[in-house]
């Protein structure tokens, strides 16, 4: 235990623009421990990929940052999870405000059964913006950012459910952008999409990186190598899930992994 822990901290890269940080984070669903002493620092204006085999706790780690795990009864979190240096699990933290700052895109596109327009203005409306002109501007702005404007500008009043899977996912990203978050969490955003749609989302992520901090969970090694600046490799062994094995710059993780297990995984020897 101690050994893995020290190695983990030792391997931390030096970063001067830390946006998100976990220190000795543990997560329990009832008695099951889903994360074990995870310590890492996520830089702003970069794409950080969390990779690893299914069930290793990637999504659990991601959901720590916008407290989505709170929805599951009987979860317990220990350790520090910080956004801009402030612990987001403190009592004084307003979860609603936190989720405005930390947006999330889910594995399966989940547009609401409303029009495209209403999907995008949903967030801003709940946060009190009602001026029609202002909302129209937001819609055009975020649809352009998410490279969807040209495809949907003439059918904003149509049901969002009529869009293709890839379009729906970009709509979901646009919907998150409309809330003006600082961080965007993406939970395997392309796993339900075809290769063309996947490439579009990846292009989109690269342009968004300038403005936002992006954390993406993916089980697609090529995707992590293609888009991310930083990569965190998580692992499970037997019934022990949720260990962070190695964290570093993507180029280092993929070309010169320090840990044997990382090397085995990225070269496809298991998992």
């Amino acid at each position, binding site marked *: 235990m101690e050994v893995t822990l020290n190695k983990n901290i030792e391997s931390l890269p030096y970063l001067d623009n830390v946006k998100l940080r976990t220190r000795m984070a543990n997560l329990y669903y009832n008695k099951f421990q889903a994360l074990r002493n995870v310590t890492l620092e996520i830089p702003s204006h970069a794409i950080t990929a969390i990779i690893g085999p299914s069930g290793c706790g990637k999504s659990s780690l991601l959901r720590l940052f916008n407290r989505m795990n709170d*929805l599951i009864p009987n979860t317990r979190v220990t350790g520090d999870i910080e956004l801009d240096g402030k612990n987001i699990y403190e009592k004084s933290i307003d979860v609603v*405000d936190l989720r405005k700052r930390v947006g999330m895109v889910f594995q399966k596109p989940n547009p609401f059964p*409303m029009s495209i327009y209403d999907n995008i203005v*949903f967030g801003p409306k709940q946060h009190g913006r009602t001026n029609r002109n202002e909302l129209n501007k937001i819609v055009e702005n975020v649809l352009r950012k998410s490279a969807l404007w040209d495809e949907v500008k003439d059918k904003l009043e149509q049901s969002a459910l009529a869009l293709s899977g890839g379009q729906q996912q970009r709509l979901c990203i646009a919907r998150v952008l409309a809330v003006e978050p600082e961080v965007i969490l993406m939970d395997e955003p392309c796993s339900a999409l075809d290769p063309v749609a996947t490439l579009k989302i990846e292009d989109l992520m690269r342009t968004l990186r300038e403005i936002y901090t992006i954390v993406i969970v993916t089980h697609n090694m090529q995707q992590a190598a293609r888009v991310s600046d930083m990569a965190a490799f998580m692992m499970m062994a037997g019934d022990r899930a949720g260990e962070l094995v190695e964290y570093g710059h993507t180029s280092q993780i993929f070309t010169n992994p320090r840990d044997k297990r990382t090397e085995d995984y990225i070269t496809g020897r298991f998992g």
Partner: protein
Amino acid sequence: MKIPHHLTDKFAKYTVLVCAASSVIILAAITVFIVLQGMPTFQKVGVFDFLFGTEWRPTYDKYGILAMIVGSTAVTIGALAQAIPLGIACAILLAEVAPNRIRSFLRPAVELLVGIPSVIYGLIGMVLIVPAVRHIGGSGFSILAACLVLTAMVLPTIISISEDSIRAVPHAYKEGALALGATRWQTISRVLLPSARSGIIASIVLGMGRAVGETMAMIMVIGNAIAFPKSPLDPARTLTGNIAVEINYATGTHESALFATGIVLLIFIIVLNTITTVVLRRGIQKHAEHLT
């Protein structure tokens, strides 16, 4: 001897067909019978005088059922006006707010309420509600008392079906809304309820059917007066009550008039169902066709 497979298939097919046909035949037979029995009234009294006549005096050959149409409509609207907001609130509580521990005991309790015979509701209404209403004014046997009893009777239907439909909303919608920084209440009111709309409206239609058709409990608390009700504290009579109270001794045109009341009741329910179904369709069609 072995029976060939194609014969057993045929046999099964026709058995199912006969069963299915018999239910349609029964429905048709009932409708035809009621219409045949009631028709003489429409011929003798006239459709307009029957529907809009305010006097119901079989002994003087006066057959106007407007007072009963008003009675039925009043108790139905009154009951639904209370049961819809209460029922949806309860459904939200059970589906989204109450912890599992509380739900596991509330939900069976609500389901049990659906199964209680209406005569029991009537009894409780007579013993508790009617005297309570008497304190406000009148004899207590009134539209108001009927509304209160009927509310309790349709509430469980609305609660249980609405709750099911709120629970059936994909979890992804809820997560999506919360992840966008919506509060719990915003998530419920702007995402969950609109998504569950078709089920909630179905629950209201069913509740309405029960309200219009309820007979025994209404007879026991509404007073069954044939006079035109002028206030919620006045006694009144429902269309169903009219039939049940008088059919024992009615003959000739009187009997036919009661069947005619049944025709009106039948049309009443068909119209109400159609209206709500149309309203419901209009609201959800846009998105429903894309749901797979």
